[in-house]
């Protein structure tokens, strides 16, 4: 649908609408910016590089400055899982209650989730270069399964675009999303299942609890990225809702436009016939 048409129809459906922002989202957005600035301060200045000195040999080991990237990588990964879990919940609700609200939520969360999943892969890759000495490690199963998760949800988003009927799209993409979500526990459990083939640490939090500020930065990062997720979700959800309004209103507007094109006598004839029919109870 051309953008101008969408705009006309949305304006017809919601005349007092100005963008997808509201007072609440602007406050949340400002909080996200402040939080992000604080997180960067924590990551780059307030926390120390990861250095561990072996007391017998005096050899210094650790992740050094690369550990700072984990304050982004780990929270982003957590948000990815959260987003796909929300999508899964949405898919279940669509199949159970046939709910448009949940279909819209599932789609919005999948889109934001794919963004965060991509960020997880990119930040992980950048972190892996100094620590694992490679951008990409085929042997690491959590990396592999996250990649597969990324591809599955890219497929989910592509699949949604292939259908125009909102009802059919909701139901079918719910099935696709749910099967994709079955992959999440496989991703999460993969370290245990394929343990002998992985480089990933069992638990990043457990390793970093030595320093209180490190742990705090990690949890703070998680909060900031969850706030960004919510902010993006609200906007994406509102866009999706307006698209839905435009789709539904679109048909009524199109019929009215087409009817207006008819010559007067035909239009009058149609109107006359309809008014002479007994009330069928169907709302026109």
């Amino acid at each position: 649908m051309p953008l101008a048409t969408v705009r006309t129809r949305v304006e017809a459906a919601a005349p007092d609408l100005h963008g997808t922002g509201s007072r609440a989202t602007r406050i949340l957005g400002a909080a996200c910016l402040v939080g992000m600035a604080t997180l960067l301060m924590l990551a780059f200045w307030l926390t120390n590089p990861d250095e561990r000195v072996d007391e017998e040999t005096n050899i210094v080991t650790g992740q050094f400055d690369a550990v700072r990237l984990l304050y982004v990588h780990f929270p982003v990964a957590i948000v990815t899982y959260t987003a796909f879990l929300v999508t899964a919940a949405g898919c279940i609700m669509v199949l159970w209650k046939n709910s448009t609200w949940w279909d819209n939520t599932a789609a919005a969360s999948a889109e934001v989730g794919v963004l965060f999943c991509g960020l997880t892969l990119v930040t992980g890759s950048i972190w892996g270069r100094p620590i694992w000495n490679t951008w990409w490690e085929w042997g690491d199963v959590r990396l592999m399964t996250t990649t597969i998760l990324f591809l599955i949800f890219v497929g989910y988003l592509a699949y949604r675009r292939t259908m125009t009927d909102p009802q059919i799209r909701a139901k079918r993409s719910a099935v696709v999303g749910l099967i994709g979500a079955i992959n999440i526990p496989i991703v999460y459990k993969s370290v245990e299942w394929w343990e002998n083939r992985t480089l990933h640490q069992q638990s990043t939090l457990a390793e970093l609890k030595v320093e209180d500020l490190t742990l705090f930065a990690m949890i703070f990062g998680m909060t900031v990225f969850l706030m960004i997720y919510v902010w993006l979700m609200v906007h994406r959800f509102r866009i999706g809702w307006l698209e839905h309004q435009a789709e539904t209103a679109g048909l009524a507007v199109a019929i009215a436009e087409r009817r207006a094109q008819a010559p007067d006598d035909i239009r009058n004839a149609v109107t006359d016939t309809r008014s002479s029919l007994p009330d069928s109870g169907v709302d026109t």
Partner: protein
Amino acid sequence: MDPIMREIWAVARKDLLIEARSKVVATQVLPFALVILILFGLALDADRSTLRSFTPGLFWVATLFAGILAIQRSVSVETSSAAFEALRLSGAPGWKLFAGKALAVALQLLAIEAVLGLGVVVLYRASFADPVLVVTAALAATVAIASAGSLYGVLAVGMGVRDTILPMLLLPVLAPVLVAATRAFDDGLGTTAVNGWSWCALLAFFAVIYGTVGALAYAVVIEDA
């Protein structure tokens, strides 16, 4: 025959009969599978030791690619002449239709795998160190691929772009099956020392998951196919 099996078999038999008469899989998909094997050989510089050690992975990639075509064929016989409407009018519940369609795909996949198996023995000099493991793993993987494939095939029905969306939807979901089947074959063909039977158990787990999800979801999906 047991009445439950009779309906499932009726659906599967219909598809196999269409294949017996049209010979699309036999004359197009099977040769394509062999073409893939030969292309791998050419791409890997016909290095025999490389080919032999990569046989399990190449075998399953070839099976998946050829399987996509078999699944597309299984869907296209239903979409032409509104055959799917007639199938739904038969009154059989969705899960039985699913089981029948998946069974037919699985049998055709097994035929493709048998030819590919012969192909890797002749072309890549593969040998079966543990034939029982190879056959068991192949059966479990085939059920998983046919189940997921039959569900995703029908999900793509009625859209102009189904030929392009199906591989993108199906192959990432089947990636864990590819890993497990390759590992099981590593042991079965004696190329890598791994415990093939535990990977085989994982394949059986995938087969159960995809089979159950497919049977449950099929009824929902075909309502508006």
